[in-house]
């Protein structure tokens, strides 16, 4: 039996009502906190200003019920607001474009979607394209429409049967209804974050940030020759503020508390969205397209090539076939990793699929060494050579030449700001010694165009990492065989540093760093901006 639709409907409504319940709970909690603070305004004021002991007041059942009622009303309004035109808004956020049928590759994608629709027994799916050279695919759906999208990178780098398998996977998400739940959850989180950030910006506009004020106070005191402890500074600010603006302080507390909860909520929602659904979708995709090997190959390519600038994906990692954000938990299994990641380990997924195809991992690289050459005329008008990265390349075999860690084609020596670097002729990534980066950053010959500037802006806006997490992300998928031939193990994937979250691959033994296309330019741009 293909799919039991009643079972799916039941599952869908359970997951959606779970999301609604958590939304209602959030509002209930918020109202309760505000209510609590309002009721305790007087005692709080007394405590802070006159150091009187704080008196707690308990609430009656009816006030709880009232709060619950108000919370439900707000939640329903919010719910209606986000579920209206959900797909359209999400697509806008992802920057997805319509299919251009004059482009052969995109026309083929359209055909593939129609084919998969036939395989599902005639559900309606539309295709969309994300203009990014990252390789990934996504699906979003609401009550009215369902959309499957590919990035341009995927469109050009995957073969026809691989695209078919990927579309089958996304169609499986839509058929089983979890696409709808995930889209809704993502939009919900997004809208809450949006509301809170507006409020926060408003507050920051009218109030000095406590941290800044603290710092100002302390330096001022030091200038006068005083030594002030942290507590003194903070207390003086508090008493300063409370006299004038206790309500504002309360507002700050509420909003910061809410921000905290919403942040936790994102984690919670990830727990809701179980890893299992990706396995299930893989299985249904195989039943639809009967081609597990192609799906395994596609997953392999996608997971190797996702490490590209892909800002649109940041807010919605859950709608994609392979998590576009690299996380340390990605390839781990176990209770913790299962609860907090949205996608199961890709290696495990590939293994399951290869089992279905009755082939082994040794089949994989061989199947992938076929070069995916594209004719010039297959490219659409928007694609310039520099935005286009062919997968693999027909290079003469030369054992002594350095090989690209990403796509194994030959690297060519190149002068970059008078420093010798190795550039991959195929994917345009750059390999160089880490200590030479400093020299590149110090020199100013190069100017950067608007595209690089925009990417640098995006990196800059991400801000520094919090202090606690380590910079290392984990072993990378790239392999590099250096001159000595000693360190041919896998490179390590890590952020460039705490301030610039550009993901680079590094060989810990010989000190070579691999930067994907544009990454060196972006880093250089950032450094030169900072140096002024």
């Amino acid at each position, binding site marked *: 039996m293909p799919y039991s639709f009643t079972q799916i409907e039941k599952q869908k409504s359970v997951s959606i009502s779970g999301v609604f319940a958590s939304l209602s709970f959030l509002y209930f909690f918020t109202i309760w906190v505000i209510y609590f603070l309002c009721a305790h305004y007087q005692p709080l004021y007394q405590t802070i200003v006159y150091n009187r002991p704080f008196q707690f007041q308990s609430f009656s059942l009816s006030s709880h019920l009232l709060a619950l009622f108000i919370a439900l009303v707000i939640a329903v309004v919010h719910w209606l607001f986000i579920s209206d035109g959900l797909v359209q808004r999400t697509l806008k956020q992802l920057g997805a474009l319509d299919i251009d049928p004059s482009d052969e590759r995109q026309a*083929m994608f359209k*055909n593939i979607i129609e*084919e*998969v629709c036939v395989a599902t*027994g005639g559900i309606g799916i539309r295709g969309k394209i994300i203009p990014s050279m990252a390789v990934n695919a996504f699906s979003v759906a609401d009550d009215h429409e369902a959309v499957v999208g590919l990035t341009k990178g995927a469109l050009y780098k995957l073969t026809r049967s691989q695209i078919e398998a990927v579309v089958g996977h996304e169609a499986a998400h839509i058929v089983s209804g979890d696409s709808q739940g995930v889209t809704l959850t993502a939009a919900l989180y997004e809208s809450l974050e949006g509301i809170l950030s507006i409020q926060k910006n408003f507050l920051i506009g009218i109030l000095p940030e406590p941290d800044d004020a603290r710092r100002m106070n302390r330096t001022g005191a030091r200038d006068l020759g005083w030594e002030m402890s942290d507590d003194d500074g903070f207390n003086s600010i508090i008493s300063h503020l409370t006299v004038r603006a206790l309500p504002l302080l309360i507002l700050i507390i509420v909003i910061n508390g809410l921000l905290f909860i919403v942040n936790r909520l994102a984690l919670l929602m990830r727990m809701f969205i179980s890893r299992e659904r990706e396995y299930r979708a893989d299985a249904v995709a195989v039943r639809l397209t009967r081609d597990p090997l192609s799906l395994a190959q596609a997953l392999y390519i996608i997971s190797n090539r996702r490490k590209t600038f892909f800002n649109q994906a940041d807010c919605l990692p859950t709608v994609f076939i392979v998590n576009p954000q690299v996380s340390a938990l990605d390839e781990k299994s176990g209770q913790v990793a299962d609860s907090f990641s949205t996608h199961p380990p890709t290696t495990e997924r590939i293994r399951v699929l290869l089992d279905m195809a009755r082939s082994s991992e040794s089949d994989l690289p061989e199947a992938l060494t076929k070069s995916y050459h594209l004719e010039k005329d297959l490219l659409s008008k928007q694609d310039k050579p520099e935005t286009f990265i062919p997968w693999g390349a027909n290079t003469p075999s030369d054992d002594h030449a350095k090989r690209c860690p990403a796509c194994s084609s030959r690297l060519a020596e190149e002068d970059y700001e008078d420093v010798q670097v190795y550039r991959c002729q195929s994917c345009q990534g750059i390999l160089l010694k880490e200590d030479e980066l400093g020299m590149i950053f110090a020199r100013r010959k190069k100017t950067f165009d608007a595209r690089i500037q925009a990417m640098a802006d995006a990196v800059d806006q991400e801000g520094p990492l919090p202090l606690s997490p380590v910079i290392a992300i984990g072993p990378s998928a790239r392999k590099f065989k250096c001159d000595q031939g000693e360190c041919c193990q896998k490179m390590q994937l890590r952020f460039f540093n705490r301030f610039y979250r550009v993901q680079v691959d590094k060989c810990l033994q010989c000190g070579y760093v691999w930067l994907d296309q544009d990454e060196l330019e972006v880093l250089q741009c950032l450094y030169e901006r900072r140096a002024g």
Partner: protein
Amino acid sequence: MVLYILLGVVVLIGLYIVGVFNNLVAMRETVKNGWSQIDVQLKRRHDLIPNLVETAKGYMGHEKDTLERVIKARQQAIDVKGLKDRQEAENFLTGTLRSLFAVSENYPQLKADQQMLRLHEELTSTENKISFARQYYNDEVNRYNVAIKSFPDNLIAGPFAFTAQEFFEIAPLEKEVPQAKF
């Protein structure tokens, strides 16, 4: 009292029969719908073939036989009635198309022709759709056939004339025939 219990049992059985009947009807309709999907795609293939032959003619004048066989097979597939005959005719058409594409390998100019490339992609897509539609149809037929034969649904299926449906089989090689290569 006993009368009421009996009445209740009769009503329950009646409701059960209605439920099973409706379920079988729904399944039969799904099968029909699955069949019409195949039909649409087969028609689409018939529509594409004249264009294909027309384009190929310009380049492969020496292969008149192959082209004529395709045209003939298409006409046969359109004219034929009945599921079994139709399957045979469609399979034959697939065979001729296969030989057409095999022969076209010898004509690099034809393979590079824009119109031909587009037709090739359309035909590949249609072939895939046919095979997916067939897959869906056969899955549904299987589900329906199992339902009407299993107890106790068969007690209801018999009197209400729910008969087993035939599978639609196409030569398994078909899917590999005009695979587009990129």
